[in-house]
């Protein structure tokens, strides 16, 4: 996927990832997810797209879950961008958050091949680069 992919297409793909993600998050595999690390990756990625992205992300978690995003149980993580969507956060920021959050979760849960996860829903930013920050 590259930056030319329309937002509504990427949104559709992200939404269709929810059922397998939810199923996988209800297995023992979810216990191994490092939420703090995951949220750090998401913040790094969306700050490249929009400087206000990490602030919006944190405000969403505080408002809807009364917790910091990194304190959330893994099962709640896919709901963060859905809450952003219902709050009327700009669609591009919602889709970018879905892209990085869902694709990284899919990788961590081993439901997508490691060599492919960087391509999944992203705008061509190398996730390996983000890992190194």
């Amino acid at each position, binding site marked *: 996927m590259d930056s030319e992919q329309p937002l509504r297409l990427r949104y559709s793909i992200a939404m*269709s990832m929810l059922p397998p993600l939810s199923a996988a998050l209800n297995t023992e595999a979810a216990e191994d997810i490092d939420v703090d690390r995951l949220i750090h990756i998401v913040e790094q990625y969306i700050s490249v797209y929009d400087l206000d992205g990490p602030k919006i992300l944190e405000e969403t978690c505080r408002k809807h879950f009364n917790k910091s995003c990194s304190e959330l149980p893994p099962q709640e993580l896919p709901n963060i961008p859905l809450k952003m*969507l219902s709050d009327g956060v700009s669609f591009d920021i919602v889709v970018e958050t879905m892209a990085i959050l869902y694709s990284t979760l899919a990788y961590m849960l081993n439901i997508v091949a490691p060599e492919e996860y960087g391509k999944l829903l992203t705008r061509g930013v190398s996730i390996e680069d983000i890992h190194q920050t």
Partner: protein
Amino acid sequence: MLGTVLGNGVLTENLGVGMHEHGLPLVNRRFFEELREESFSSGRDTEHRLQIWVSKLYSLVLDALKDPRTKSSIERFIQKTCREISMATLEADIVPEKFPLSVDELIEVITKAVHKVVKEKVEEYVNKGLVEPTADSIAKFAKIKALEILGTCFESSLIKLGVVA
């Protein structure tokens, strides 16, 4: 193609369902070029041609706002795009606060906002030879600028969003 991206696991199967449910595929960029050409070949003057173009784009914008789950988020995205375009063309913050059903209503509101900005900077525009220092000339210039801003904003937003074929 998506199967190649995602491999052959559970995700690929679910993708198929999602794509179908959301009414894809989407139109390509050529669609917008043709929309421009079509609009600009049918109007009697610049203002009328721009008006036809904006009206066609606006009906697509209203389509994009039909899904209640994404409506407010997409509205915010379009407003963000309009802000960027109006800042680049007029150095002013011209944003459609509402998306009414009537395109004429929207054009009227934006023209009024642009007219105010043009009046404030009238000396600059007169010096550049863009407008005559008369009420009629200022009003006409404001209307054309408003249509250009709206059209460019909608076209750019729709290309980034993707228009369902």
